[in-house]
C-alpha cells in the first residue's frame, strides 16, 4: 500500500509528465509547420480536415438544432417567458461556453480516438520506423498535419455549431411555442457580438483543437506493443483529452474575467 502523501506526489508526477509530453508534441507540430507545404503532408492535413471537420457536420448540425431548441424552450420557461433574459442567459451560458465544449468533446471522442488508434496501429506495424528510414520525419508527416487539421476543424465547427444553434434553435422554438424569432434575434445581436469576443472564441477553439491533436498523437505514438496497446492508447487519449479541454476552458474563463 502506497502512503497517501506519496500517492499524491505520484499523481502530480503523472500530470507533470503527461502535460510536458503534450506540450512537446504541440511544440513539435508548430516547429514542423513548414512541412505542411510538402504534398504528402498537405494531403494528410486535408484528409484530417475532411474526417474531423466535414464528416462531423451532419451530426453536429442535428445536435446544435436540438440543443438550441431544448435550451431556449427550457430557459424561456424558467425565466417566466422573459425573452430578453432568456436570450442573455442563452448567449452567455450555451453559446459562449457550452457550444465550444460540446464541439471539442465531440471531436475528441470521434476523431481524437480514431487518430490515437491509427497512430498506435502505425507504431505496432513498424510504419513509423519505416517513415524514419525513408528520411521522412514522423513529426512532418504524422504530427503537424493532424494537430493543425484538428485546429482548423474545431475552429470551423465551433463557428458552424453556434450559427446552427442560434438560427436553428430560435427557428424551432418559434415553431413550437410562443417565441418571437425576429425579436429574439434582435436581442441576441444587440447583446454584444464584438470582434474581440469573436477572436477570443476563435482562439479558444483553436487551442482546444490543438490540444485534441496533441493528446491523440502523443498517446498513439506512445502505444506499447501487444494486444492491449491500441485500446489502452485510445482510452487514455479520450480521457486525457477531455481533462485537457476542461482544464483549458477553465484557464480561458480565468483569463476572460
Amino acid at each position, binding site marked *: 500500500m502506497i502512503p497517501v502523501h506519496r500517492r499524491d506526489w505520484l499523481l502530480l508526477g503523472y500530470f507533470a509528465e503527461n502535460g510536458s509530453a503534450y506540450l512537446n508534441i504541440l511544440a513539435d507540430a508548430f516547429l514542423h509547420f513548414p512541412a505542411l507545404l510538402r504534398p*504528402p503532408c498537405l494531403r494528410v492535413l486535408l484528409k484530417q480536415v475532411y474526417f474531423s471537420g466535414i464528416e462531423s457536420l451532419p451530426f453536429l448540425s442535428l445536435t446544435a438544432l436540438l440543443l438550441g431548441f431544448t435550451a431556449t424552450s427550457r430557459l424561456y420557461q424558467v425565466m417566466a417567458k422573459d425573452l430578453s433574459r432568456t436570450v442573455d442567459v442563452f448567449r452567455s451560458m450555451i453559446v459562449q461556453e457550452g457550444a465550444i465544449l460540446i464541439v471539442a468533446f465531440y471531436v475528441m471522442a470521434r476523431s481524437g480516438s480514431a487518430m490515437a488508434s491509427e497512430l498506435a496501429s502505425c507504431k505496432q506495424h513498424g510504419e513509423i520506423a*519505416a517513415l*524514419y528510414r525513408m528520411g521522412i520525419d514522423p513529426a512532418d508527416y504524422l504530427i503537424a498535419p493532424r494537430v493543425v487539421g484538428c485546429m482548423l476543424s474545431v475552429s470551423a465547427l465551433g463557428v458552424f455549431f453556434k450559427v446552427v444553434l442560434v438560427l436553428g434553435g430560435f427557428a424551432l422554438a418559434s415553431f413550437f411555442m410562443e417565441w418571437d424569432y425576429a425579436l429574439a434575434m434582435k436581442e441576441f445581436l444587440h447583446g454584444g457580438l464584438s470582434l474581440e469576443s469573436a477572436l477570443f472564441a476563435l482562439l479558444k477553439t483553436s487551442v482546444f483543437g490543438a490540444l485534441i491533436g496533441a493528446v491523440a498523437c502523443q498517446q498513439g505514438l506512445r502505444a506499447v506493443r501487444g494486444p492491449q496497446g491500441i485500446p489502452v492508447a485510445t482510452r487514455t487519449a479520450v480521457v486525457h483529452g477531455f481533462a485537457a479541454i476542461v482544464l483549458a476552458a477553465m484557464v480561458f474563463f480565468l483569463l476572460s474575467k
Partner: protein
Amino acid sequence: MKAIFQSKDLVVRDRRVPDLALDSGACGGWQIHDADFAIEVLDGVTGLQPAQGGGTCWFGQELSGLPESGILRLLARTMTLTPDGPLIANLNIRDNVLLPALHRRMDSETGLLRKLDRLLTGSDLPWPPAPDFPFLLPHHLGVLQRWLAGLLRAALAAPEIVMCCHYPGDLSAEEQQELVGGFQWLRNILPGSAWLFLTCEQGLPEGFSGSFAEVAP
C-alpha cells in the same frame, strides 16, 4: 573512390557487425540468420535504435554526432527494401510508391506519376503488376507484389544507397529467382547506387558482385 557507407565496430544485441565500406556502385552485405536481428542491425545502422557500441558513417559523416534532422537528411539519400515494402497501410500503392520522392520534392506529382506509368508499362519490368496495382492497398498484395512496390519506390526516389533487408520467408525458389531479377532491374535503373544487403541467403544476390561478411549468431 570515396566510401559512402562504413560500419565501424557496430555492436547490436551483443554481436559485432563486421566493418564494411562501400563505394558508389559497389555491393556488400552481412549474412544474418534471423529476420528480427536483421531489422535490429538495420535500425542500428540507420540510428533508429542506439547501437551498443561503435557506429556508422554515411557519406563521410558520423551518424552518432548528428542531430536527428541531420540523420534524416542522410537517410533521405538512401532507400530500405524489406519484404513488406515497407508500405504504409492506409495509403494505396501509388501513394506509397510516390511518398518519398514527393516528400523530397524530386519532381511534381504529375511528373512522378508519368515516370511511374512508364516504369509499370515498361517491357523490362521484372514481373507483371497485379491488376489495378496502383490503387490497391498493401494488405491486398502478395509478397512479390509488395517487393515490386518497394522496387518502384526506390526507382522513383533514386537513392545513393539501397539497403536490402531480405529473408526468403514465403517465397518459393522460383519467386526468389524472380526477386533477383527485380534487384537487377533496379540496379540497371540506378547504376551508381551502392547496395547493402542484410540477408540470410548468401546465394540470393549472386547476380551482384559483392563482399559478404557473416554476423555470428
